[in-house]
């Protein structure tokens, strides 16, 4: 049982794709302009990673070693295209918003990396869970970064949720800061880099602190209050 726990902990926190492995940053930077966009693409990626883990693992012993990469890419590409078809059919608004970034999930190196490094060596259940945990970790980072950029850049939260859930969710959009003029840098690509840097810094700070505490070297070290990111927890 603890194997499953380890996989979850690894994917969501310890080996987080966005904060630690720093893989698959292209969509992370491009789509994280709002909370809804970030979480939606994160979940689509998580779905693809779960499916590809589950698809590759059972046939891992039948794939000749020399052609494993083309076969993995083929499987990932097929799964992404299936997800794209489904989104086009049933979540059209979101499909239009995420646009080119849905097919680009194929080229997100994190998908292939987990298939090659994990699914090709582990049983089905573990492989699928690993894909899911890694995808969930990415989704969390995308969500937090999207929420930060959206609040700072536009003063809203959940904008565009009607695209994901249908028109009835229109009233869910929160205007966190009323009459906000907007802060353009946060919405433009540099905002993504700056925001991500703060998140990575917060994660590193937290990891260092836990490591130091575990050593018990110096219990009196006062935590340095950055005050920049409210997301360290």
């Amino acid at each position, binding site marked *: 049982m603890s194997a499953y726990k380890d996989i979850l902990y690894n994917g969501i926190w310890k080996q987080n794709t966005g904060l630690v492995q720093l893989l698959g940053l292209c969509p992370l930077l491009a789509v994280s*302009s709002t909370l809804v966009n970030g979480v939606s693409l994160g979940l689509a990626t998580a779905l693809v990673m779960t499916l590809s883990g589950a698809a590759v693992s059972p046939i891992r012993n039948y*794939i*000749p070693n*020399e*052609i494993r990469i*083309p*076969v993995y890419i*083929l*499987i990932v*590409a*097929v799964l992404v*295209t*299936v997800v794209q*078809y*489904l989104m*086009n*059919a*049933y979540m*059209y608004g979101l499909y239009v918003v995420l646009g080119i970034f849905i097919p680009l999930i194929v080229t997100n190196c994190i998908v292939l990396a987990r298939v090659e490094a994990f699914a090709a060596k582990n049983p089905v259940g573990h492989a699928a869970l690993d894909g899911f945990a890694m995808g969930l970790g990415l989704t969390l980072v995308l969500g937090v970064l999207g929420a930060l950029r959206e609040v700072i*850049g*536009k003063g809203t939260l959940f904008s565009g949720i009607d695209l994901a859930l249908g028109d009835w969710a229109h009233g869910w959009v929160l205007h966190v800061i009323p009459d906000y003029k*907007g802060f*353009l840098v946060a*919405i*433009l690509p540099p905002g993504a880099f700056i925001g991500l840097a703060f998140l990575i810094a917060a994660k590193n700070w937290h990891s260092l602190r836990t490591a130091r505490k575990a050593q018990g070297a110096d219990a009196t070290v006062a935590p340095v209050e950055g005050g920049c990111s409210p997301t360290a927890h």
Partner: protein
Amino acid sequence: MRNTLARASFRTAVNLLFFSVIGTFVLASTHLLTEETIKQTEEGEKLKLIAQLLPAELYDNDIIQDTQEIAADPLLGTSGTTVVHRARLHGEPSAVVLEAIAPDGYSGKISIILAIRANGEVTGVRVVNHHETPGLGDYIELAKSAWIKNFDGKSHANRPEPEWKVKKDGGQFDYMAGATITPRAVIKATHKALNYFEAHRDTLFTVAAPAGEKKS
């Protein structure tokens, strides 16, 4: 030696072929299963967009099916064939829905769709796709501001040529300080699309809709 190498390559190739065939099969089935829904969703979205542009009392025909393909034209700024939807009321031509492209936006092309009544009056313009600066040039989207509604009801007859400009250039249209390139591009594209409509008014309505399969 050569024989085993050939056999190994052959086995690898067959293996790859096997996976490709399975992948193709999965894709083909998904395509077939979702095709109808995707078509319906896209037509529904298009109809919703047209409904924003054209008042419902202006047409009673099947506007999605009543189309004509038109060649690329410098007046429309298009580079390939586009589809015109034709609205008719009691069999009489009442309006067309055209796609046009403003090539000179602040960051690239701005795609618009507009509806023009048979008398040359614009009933509505919407921006379909653009890359203008968020928070600055994006007020051409209806979601951000009502600016785009400035075009409603305007025509060449009731607005002479020099008024098809932003106020800064001596025209009739509002703009926001700091972002004049964007509205200039949209106004110019709309104006040119009206010119196109006037030059092709007769053929736009008369050429029959393509029979059978329609490319969307």
